[in-house]
Every structure is written in structure tokens, then in C-alpha cells.
């Protein structure tokens, strides 16, 4: 059953209560049970920012806190690694930047060669070099970025389809993305590109999982 209390009424009740219960404002100590031993009982119960370092809960040996290695807290049932979607943007960006660097360097090399053959000097040569670097960097960055987008999309799709995220996904996604990227060049070239990508992905997975040690090979032969 609910009783509606009008606003001033409630306020008055609260004030009344304050006077009865926690009126520490003028405790002289003379009439208290502790004979005035603790003459200031006016201690706030709520936390105060200035008192935070003095918290009794922090009163422990700080050597318990590990400082050498990071301590991560994972939610129950969560993977101890970031998923493919969370890594996707970083991978694409890394591919773009790497492509810009590689393409820019090769463009600079080609530009220096071409301009010295053509005998250009001064302002003309400088502008021409900038053009070469920009063109080479942009095309390489675009190609690598698009391949990586295809790879991440394939990886996310495979993870979603299979329900697990393992090395097989990496290899299959790499092969798929390379095949799709080279598909306009013809079936044969697309197949070759896919095979190369799969080989690279297999090598990466072996390196990432700790190589081909005897224990691991035995583990594959005789799965526990």
C-alpha cells in the first residue's frame, strides 16, 4: 500500500528526523555515553575527495601489486584476444601506410632514374619527382588497402560462418582476397595469386603459433 505524502510534509518529517537522530552539531561530551572521550563525532560517512588517499582500504603492502607485467581482466567467456572486427581498421590502416611508404620509395627511385635520363633539373625535376612519389605511393597504398579490406571482410565472414576464429580462417581469407583481387586478370593468374597468398598465410600462421616443433607435430598426430 502506498501513501502519498505531499512535498512540504515529507520535508518537515525529514527535518524532524534530523534533529532526533544525528544531531552531532553541539555535542559537548558531558552527557554522552563515552564521557566525552571522543568529543568530535562529527565525521562524515560519505567519501570526500581530499580523504581518498587516506582510505583504510588502501592500507596494504604495495608490493602485492605487480608492476612488471600488465594485468588484464577479461570478462567471463570472452576471448583473450581482440576479434577480427576490432583489428580490421588497424590492419587496413597499417596496409595503407606501408603501401604508401613502399610505393613512394619505389616512385622516388623511378623518378630519379627517369628525370636524370631526361636531363631535367631544378624546379621541373622537383615537381616531376613529387609527381612520381605521389603517384607511386597512392597506387600502392590503394591496392594494398583494398586487398586488406577484402581480407578482413573474408576473415570476419568466415569467423561468422564457422563460429570459431583460428588459423584456418586466416589462410582461407588470404587466399580468397588474393583470388578476388586478381580475378579480372584471368582464372590462371587469380589462382596463382591465391596460392601465393595461401602460402604466405600458412607461413605467418606457423610463425605466429610457435613454429613446427616436435611436440606440436606429435600433438597434431595424436590429438589429446
Amino acid at each position: 500500500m502506498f501513501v502519498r505524502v505531499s512535498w512540504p510534509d515529507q520535508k518537515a518529517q525529514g527535518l524532524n528526523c534530523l534533529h532526533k537522530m544525528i544531531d552531532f552539531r553541539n555535542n559537548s561530551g558531558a552527557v554522552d555515553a563515552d564521557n566525552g572521550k571522543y568529543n568530535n563525532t562529527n565525521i562524515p560517512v560519505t567519501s570526500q575527495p581530499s580523504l581518498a588517499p587516506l582510505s583504510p582500504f588502501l592500507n596494504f603492502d604495495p608490493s602485492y601489486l605487480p608492476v612488471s607485467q600488465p594485468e588484464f581482466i577479461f570478462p567471463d567467456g570472452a576471448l583473450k584476444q581482440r576479434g577480427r572486427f576490432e583489428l580490421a581498421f588497424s590492419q587496413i590502416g597499417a596496409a595503407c601506410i606501408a603501401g604508401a611508404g613502399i610505393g613512394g620509395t619505389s616512385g622516388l627511385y623511378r623518378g630519379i632514374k627517369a628525370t636524370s635520363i631526361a636531363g631535367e633539373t631544378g624546379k621541373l625535376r622537383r615537381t616531376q619527382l613529387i609527381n612520381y612519389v605521389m603517384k607511386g605511393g597512392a597506387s600502392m597504398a590503394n591496392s594494398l588497402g583494398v586487398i586488406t579490406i577484402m581480407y578482413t571482410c573474408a576473415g570476419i565472414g568466415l569467423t561468422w560462418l564457422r563460429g570459431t576464429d583460428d588459423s584456418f580462417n586466416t589462410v582461407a581469407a588470404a587466399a580468397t582476397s588474393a583470388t578476388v583481387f586478381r580475378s579480372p586478370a584471368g582464372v590462371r593468374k587469380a589462382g596463382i595469386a591465391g596460392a601465393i597468398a595461401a602460402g604466405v598465410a600458412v607461413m605467418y600462421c606457423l610463425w605466429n603459433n610457435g613454429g613446427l616443433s616436435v611436440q606440436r607435430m606429435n600433438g597434431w598426430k595424436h590429438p589429446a
Partner: protein
Amino acid sequence: MEEYAREPCPWRIVDDCGGAFTMGVIGGAIFQSIKGFRNAPSGWKQRFAGSVVAIRQRAPIIAGNFAVWGGMFSTIDCTLVHFRGGKEDPYNSIISGAATGGILAARNGLPAMVGSAIIGGVLLALIEGVGICFTRLSAEQFKPPSLVEDPSQFTTPSQGYPS
């Protein structure tokens, strides 16, 4: 996406570059597919072929431009964060947006640089403004129902047990 958070500063450049490239690929693919479809000779097969050709030719270039914008933007953003003593506020984004616009138009002459810088700054100011508005609106619903103005209300007795 629910676990997605912004990376700490040096890695944010890579992350933003990738995000901008992805955005550019998706947006460019949509735009170029429509453009290629409209500009192709009549006939469904030819229209779809034109669409695909346009996407293959133009979408990576648009994506690359986006990626350059995003990467340059976060590079300047991180530089500003470093030099302003770890401050990350809307002014940072606006300044880096204007600087990015200016730097990327550097080869087109000074008037183009100024114009691009103004456009970049205004764009980023709009984005930041919308972001602040969204934060305000979403913070509104997490507000406690009534703030206590009077300290006496702290001791409102629980119903049924008057002391």
C-alpha cells in the same frame, strides 16, 4: 562494435587511416556504381559492367584520398595532444581539421589552401558540435531522477519505520 574504443595516440593514426579508407571504399563503391550504371550504354548487362568498371577504377582512388585525410588528421591531432599537454578537446579536432585541409591543398596555391583549411575547420566544428549534442542528449537519460537541493532530504525516513 560495442567493445570499440579509440586507440591511444600513436596507434590512433593507423586506426583512423584504416577507418577512413574503409569509409572511402564503401562510399566510393556506392557512388561509382550509380555513376557507372547511369553513364553506361543501354542494356542491363552493359550497365552492370559499367558499374563494375567504374568501381574498380575510381573507388580505390576515393578511398585513398579519404585515407590520406584521416591519417593526416590524426597525425596532427596527436601532435597537438602532445604539445598541449595531453589535452583532448574539440579545439584540437577543429585545429587539426583546418590544418589538414590546408596541408593537403598545399600544391594548389595559397588561396586554395586557405579555402580548404576553412572548409576543414568548419566541417570538424560541425562534427564536434553534433558529437557534443549527442553526448548531452544521451547524458540526459542517465541523470538521477531528482537532485537533492536540501540536505535535510538525506534523512528521509523509510516508509513504515518512523523513528
